């Protein structure tokens, strides 16, 4: 077994956008691992043939090479351990012409035979004759051994191509070159053990040096030498760069909690922001700043959004959930010698909050309702018209559905008011600045205007759930508004032919559809998809460009998929979902009850037997539909009479749970029935009675599930 070395490559670039870092890191690692395998520079080659076969056969092929990737704003780096210093000798088998053409009748090589040996640089005596798979006769074969090459040479040849071949989503050029990369490469550190791998990429030649933090180099003009790959982290930490994103992340998380606690509160958590910060600083330190307390009059969501979007800062909330006049942000240095960093961040934040307060004050100079007219100039969708048109449709939908949920006229009037106001905030300055505050601002402004709490809460939450993780609106009115808004979007788009397909869903209609199903599911509202589609298409009216029947069919298929997915989200087992859905999916309240009941029985071993019997029943009834009515008096065998008695009980079951209990009791009698009774007997009356018995049983089953799909 020959010696192994550690390989280290660092591309030192101008600041790389955070969003590309981790993808580039893992992509190169994967490419390198494939290359190492192809070139046999992996220690596994030092193992015996038997060991390798054993491994290959036993498990998924995983290279054991240890590797680490390091990503930071100016660095993409990778370290691979245990790479062979010398590639093992490579043997190759080459085959040539058939034996009869290589060897003459005198057993001497023919000219063709000599040429084949010459081609591969071996004496003719080294040529063997074997019959390769798929050939009819023996052919000339030689085994060529190529001497293994030093890995450093192989690396030098391969790396420029591997680097240039990285997939860069938004590639750029710089200077005079046509080379493309994510940002200009300014230095390359490339070590195999302590040896520099001589590569050049776009005119930059590799060395054993790199650059630390910009501040560090103000005092130390020379580059940092990395003696060995193992010294990478420590040498750079000393030069002001924490190369591991995980370490930076952990340090900041700890400091955030610590500083928030010291300020008497806790961080308003934002995992995405912390991830971003870990990727845009190389020597992190969280610092606390303060802002004037009078900005706390702004809604909490405005402050949190403004701080996050403009200043990549976290808010701190007190024990009661109210914000404190402090913020936390990351600096790209671990000290603040003159206090400039803190003061600067505070100054900028104040400017931003000033702007937010300006928007908040300006927006409130006019009643929110004044914006309703202005929605006419805001297009919702080309065929479906403006947001004003959309508002009209949503109001109509709310009217239709609200009367089925409530008989209180005042309550219904408030729901209609919420629907009229829902989209008005799209014309406010604040939502113009922070689109993610849509709905929230409308609610806030209505609250300030003294609107009924039901109304402003409904408007505030009507975009929810914004994703699978988000909750549905907290009030029934919010749910109704959200449902109607999403329903209009989905049905309207389908009616003009905008139907999601495959991975294409630019209008996020599936997410909207899922929101509708979740609201129905969690609220237990009894609207069926047919009800909803009919109501929605009525309000879309003449804006539809597709025939209503076509749209309805597409929407039914769409909602069925959404319902199926809802069952997955709810965590039901596959057998429960399949069999329950097949017995009807439109009545969600009923579907939920059936899934719950089925899940409770899922572990019952009798269900496996019941499923088998259900399949047999299905097969028998497939060929022959029973005629006439069921007359249990015609049944003769004990096994079938028992079954008929139990059927009476099954059909009398009051709810899903009772039904399932009686069904489970059928498992054994059914088995007995099928082993003793010949259903398709000669006597036509008896045969009809038996078939009718099975038909009735199947109908009873289908009240809860199609057990033939239970596995």
């Amino acid at each position, binding site marked *: 077994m020959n010696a192994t070395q550690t390989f280290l490559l660092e591309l030192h670039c101008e600041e790389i956008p955070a969003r590309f870092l981790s993808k580039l890191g893992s992509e190169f690692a994967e490419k390198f691992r494939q290359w190492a395998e192809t070139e046999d520079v992996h220690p596994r080659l030092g193992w015996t043939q038997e060991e390798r076969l054993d491994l290959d056969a036993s498990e998924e092929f995983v290279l054991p090479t240890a590797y680490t990737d390091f990503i930071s704003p100016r660095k993409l780096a990778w370290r691979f351990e245990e790479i062979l210093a010398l590639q093992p000798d490579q043997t190759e088998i080459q085959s040539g012409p058939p034996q009869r053409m290589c060897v003459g009748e005198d057993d001497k090589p023919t000219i063709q035979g000599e040429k084949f040996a010459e081609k591969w640089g071996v004496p003719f005596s080294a040529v063997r004759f074997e019959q390769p798979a798929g050939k009819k006769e023996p052919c000339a074969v030689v085994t060529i051994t190529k001497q293994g090459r030093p890995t450093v040479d192989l690396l030098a040849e391969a790396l420029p191509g591997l680097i240039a071949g990285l997939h*860069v989503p938004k590639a*750029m050029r*710089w200077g*005079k070159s046509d080379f493309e990369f994510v940002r200009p490469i300014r230095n390359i550190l490339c070590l195999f053990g302590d040896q520099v791998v001589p590569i050049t990429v776009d005119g930059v030649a590799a060395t054993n040096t790199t650059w630390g933090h910009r501040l560090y180099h103000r005092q130390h003009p020379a580059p940092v030498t990395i003696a060995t790959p193992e010294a990478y982290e420590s040498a750079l930490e000393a030069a002001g760069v924490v190369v591991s994103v995980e370490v930076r992340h952990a340090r900041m998380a700890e400091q955030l909690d610590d500083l928030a606690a010291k300020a008497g509160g806790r961080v308003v958590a934002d995992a995405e922001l912390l991830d971003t910060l870990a990727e845009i600083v190389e020597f992190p330190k969280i610092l606390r700043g303060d802002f004037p307390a009078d900005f706390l009059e702004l809604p909490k969501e405005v402050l949190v959004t403004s701080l996050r979007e403009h200043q990549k800062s976290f808010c701190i909330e007190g024990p009661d959930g109210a914000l404190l006049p402090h913020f936390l942000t990351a600096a790209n240095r671990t000290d603040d010698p003159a206090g400039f*960093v803190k003061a600067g961040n505070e100054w900028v934040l104040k*400017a931003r909050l000033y702007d937010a307060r300006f928007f908040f004050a300006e927006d409130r100079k006019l009643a929110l309702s004044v914006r309703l007219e202005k929605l006419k100039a805001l297009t919702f969708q080309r065929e479906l018209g403006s947001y004003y048109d959309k508002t009209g449709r949503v109001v109509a939908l709310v009217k239709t559905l609200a009367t089925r949920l409530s008989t209180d006229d005042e309550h219904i009037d408030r729901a209609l008011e919420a629907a009229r106001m829902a989209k008005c905030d799209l014309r406010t300055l604040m939502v113009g600045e922070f689109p993610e505050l849509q709905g929230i601002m409308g609610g806030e402004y209505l609250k300030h205007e003294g609107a009924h709490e039901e109304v402003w809460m409904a408007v505030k939450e009507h975009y929810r759930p914004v994703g699978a993780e988000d909750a549905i609106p907290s009030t029934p009115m919010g749910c109704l508004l959200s449902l109607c808004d999403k329903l209009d979007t989905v049905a309207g788009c389908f009616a003009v032919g905008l139907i999601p397909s495959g991975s294409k869903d630019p209008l996020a209609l599936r997410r909207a559809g899922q929101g509708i199903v979740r609201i129905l599911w969690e609220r237990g509202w009894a609207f069926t998809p047919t009800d909803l589609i009919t109501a929605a298409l009525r309000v879309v009216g003449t804006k539809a460009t597709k025939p209503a029947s076509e749209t309805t069919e597409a929407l039914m298929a769409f909602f069925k998929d959404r319902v199926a997915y809802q069952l997955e989200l709810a965590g039901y087992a596959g057998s429960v979902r399949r069999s329950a859905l097949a017995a009807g999916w439109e009545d969600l309240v009923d579907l939920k009850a059936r899934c719950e009941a089925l899940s409770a029985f899922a572990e019952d071993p009798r269900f496996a037997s019941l499923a088998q019997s259900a399949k047999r029943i299905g097969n028998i009834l497939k060929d022959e539909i029973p005629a006439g009515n069921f007359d249990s008096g015609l049944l003769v065998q004990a096994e079938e009479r028992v079954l008929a008695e139990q059927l009476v009980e099954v059909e009398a079951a009051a709810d899903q749970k009772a039904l399932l209990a009686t069904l489970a009791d059928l498992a054994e009698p059914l088995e007995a029935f099928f082993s003793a009774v010949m259903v398709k007997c000669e006597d036509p009356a008896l045969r009809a009675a038996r078939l009718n018995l099975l038909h009735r049983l199947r109908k009873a089953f289908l009240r809860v599930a199609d057990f033939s799909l239970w596995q």
Partner: protein
Amino acid sequence: MHIQELILRLQRFWADRGCLIGQPYDLEKGAGTMNPLTFFGALGSKPWNVAYVEPSRRPADGRYGENPFRVYKHLQFQVILKPSPAKVQDLYIESLEALGIDLTKHDLRFEEDNWESPSLGAWGVGWQVVLDGMEISQFTYFQQVGGLDCRPVSAELTYGIERICMFLGGYDNIFDLVHGEVKTDDGVFPVTYGQMRQREEFELSAYSFEHADIDLHRTLFDAFEKEGWRLLKDHGHFLSAYEQALKMSHTFNVLDARGAVSTTERPGIIKRVRDLACACARAYLEHQEGVVAPAEATGKGGAK
């Protein structure tokens, strides 16, 4: 630091590093990039370094001179370096030091911020430069201008003059900035930004939001467009035609601030400006170098 001192130092710094010192272009525009020194200068193969101040108008940003941070018109200091030098980031940092910013005491970051001007058919990638949490410059590697690939690539540095001055002086209100001092026999009189510009901010904001004649601006937009294409097609004059594109752009900005442009209308209007600007770019390159690359897609850079 006074505004004029900041400008003088930047001009000195970049002149010493081999830049021509240009002048603002005397037409309304939204950004220094629109100055022909950049728009045409970034095209073609010849080396080109230039630096200049550009007053930039953003009608929708007007706040009647009442907002301490936002204004209708601000000053940009624009630098174009073609081809982009290998040490361009270091050069930029040195320019900050020339302004008296001691970087050992500050936090300086380059955060992704890609630039795109749909009305110029131009885009590039780069950063916003953030000093202690405040954006003080835009830094862009031009990839396309006028719908044409930039070869070689220019680096564009844009300094926000008022912002940097406010930041350095700790001012909380842009109108308190001191532009410079007037010295007379009677004494020294500091002149503030507010004295020079506040009334202008008020009137231009009022114009953009309230008084601009919408019908007139629509008519003007059409007329500038017609004039531009006539100059280009009948006479092959890309400089005077480009001026018409600039006028179209500003006219559109006024209409937009006035709330006269619907969201559906917007892309179509921008495209009309872009079509003329791109045609001017191609005519320039043909005139300058006798060759022009086949029409490039104006989309953003895709996968390699």
